[in-house]
């Protein structure tokens, strides 16, 4: 990862969402991207130029654009048409983003397009987010990592986030996914956790 002082940056054409530039690099703001928040907390999987990434919940392509600056190719899955319009604009500029308009619950829809990847990044804020990760783990190479942004509030607002997170980790392990580390993203994102997972 590229750091200028204590600020995370990525190298690529700027002006994707009005991000600041530092010495020609694009500032990757931990308050606007959960992945940047994770790196700023000193955790996470370093992105390398040969990596292939499956990105679930690509939204408007803000974080996707930074990931694409680091890796070889990003398969960006997003179901909703409106954010997809923005993502298409980002993908026109960055040739290593493969936009896929599909629901991450139904990976059979994009099996014909997506090859095996080194990293699966998921940020979907849905009640069934653990199941979504599990059905997509088929795309991961056997020693690959999954970075799972967990929003306990989307699963159950009435219980404490820590409690929900514990349950999700258990659920993942029954589905054959081992959680290596659970990182809470405060102060950047209160009540959000990043789970670093592997196939067990």
């Amino acid at each position, binding site marked *: 990862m590229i750091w200028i002082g204590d600020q995370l940056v990525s190298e690529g054409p700027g002006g994707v969402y009005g991000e600041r530039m530092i010495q020609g690099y694009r500032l990757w703001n931990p308050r606007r991207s959960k992945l940047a928040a994770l790196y700023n907390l000193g955790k996470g999987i370093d992105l390398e130029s040969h990596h292939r990434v499956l990105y679930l919940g690509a939204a408007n392509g803000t974080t996707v654009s930074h990931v694409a600056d680091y890796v070889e*190719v990003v398969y960006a899955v997003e179901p909703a*048409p*409106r954010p*997809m*319009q923005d*993502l*298409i604009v980002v*993908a*026109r500029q960055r*040739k*290593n*983003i*493969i*936009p*896929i*308009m*599909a629901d991450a619950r139904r990976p*059979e*829809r*994009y*099996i*014909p*397009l*997506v*090859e*095996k990847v080194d990293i699966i990044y998921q940020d979907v804020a849905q009640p069934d987010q653990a199941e979504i990760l599990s059905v997509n783990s088929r*795309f991961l190479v056997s020693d690959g990592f999954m970075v799972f942004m967990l929003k306990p509030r989307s699963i159950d607002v*009435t219980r404490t986030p820590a409690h929900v997170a514990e349950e999700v980790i258990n659920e993942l392990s029954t589905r054959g996914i081992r959680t290596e580390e659970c990182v809470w993203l405060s102060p950047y994102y209160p009540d959000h956790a990043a789970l670093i997972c592997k196939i067990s």
Partner: protein
Amino acid sequence: MNPNEGSYPLLLMKSYWFLDREGGTCHALPHDQRILAERIKQLEGDKTAETPDWEYAVKCGFVKNRGEYLDLLHATALFLAADRIDEESKVDHPELILMVKMLDEIDTVINLLSERSVEWYRALNPEFSRKSEIPRGRKLRDLMRDGSDEALGEILDEIEQLTRRRSTLSMKVSAKAAEFLPNCSALAGGLVAARLAAEAGGIRALALMPGSAIQVLGARNALFCHLSTASPPPKHGLVYQYRGVHGSRKERRGKVARVLAAKLAIAAKIDYYRGESDPVFIEKAQETILNAGRSP
């Protein structure tokens, strides 16, 4: 397998988004986004579809190297995504939802501006009191226009303009709803139908909802209050705006809302999947809804 059938059995054939492989030979597809996108659409429902293998694409002569493979995949995926957005807007008509949201926003603005204008007018004319008989709407604006200064007068003109825009937009929403949601509109009126679709998050989302969810659409706070505390469940959300609901006696409203919502759930499904008005259904449903409002 009978070789006389002329074609290889499907099981021996492997299909990728860029080529077909039959036994030892392969047939690469042309580098045409339209054709490749069509192929992907065919493959995506296919449970036997394979994860693509770019090395095979090179071996077969579809592309020269990985760079070219990714370029072609990128171009095809862009084409496909744009195509999907087009398709989506054909069935889901996002403009109807944006129009009805705009309409509700204009209402809010008119109310805010009117309230402020009255306050302003009162400051200029202290004898004008809320306690006295204050006319409403246009009459109020006409009254205020005399005896107010120029700046306030201009704002009143502006409110007048907005009110006119509102009524034209409202007619357009009704017309669009009658076109895209013919059955729902016939039961609950175009505006209510459009608002329900907006609250549900689209015509498709509305079609997938059960009647019980439609009944409380737009009563989110009351619903979650009910779920987390012991407060009673909401009887109606947006369907309250239907005349048969707010017009009937208080103790019958819940029943009318429930019956209306159940019929709307069916109507929304007809609207989404069939896309045309069903007069027989509408007539029977209207009768059932009317009966629900009558005393037993």
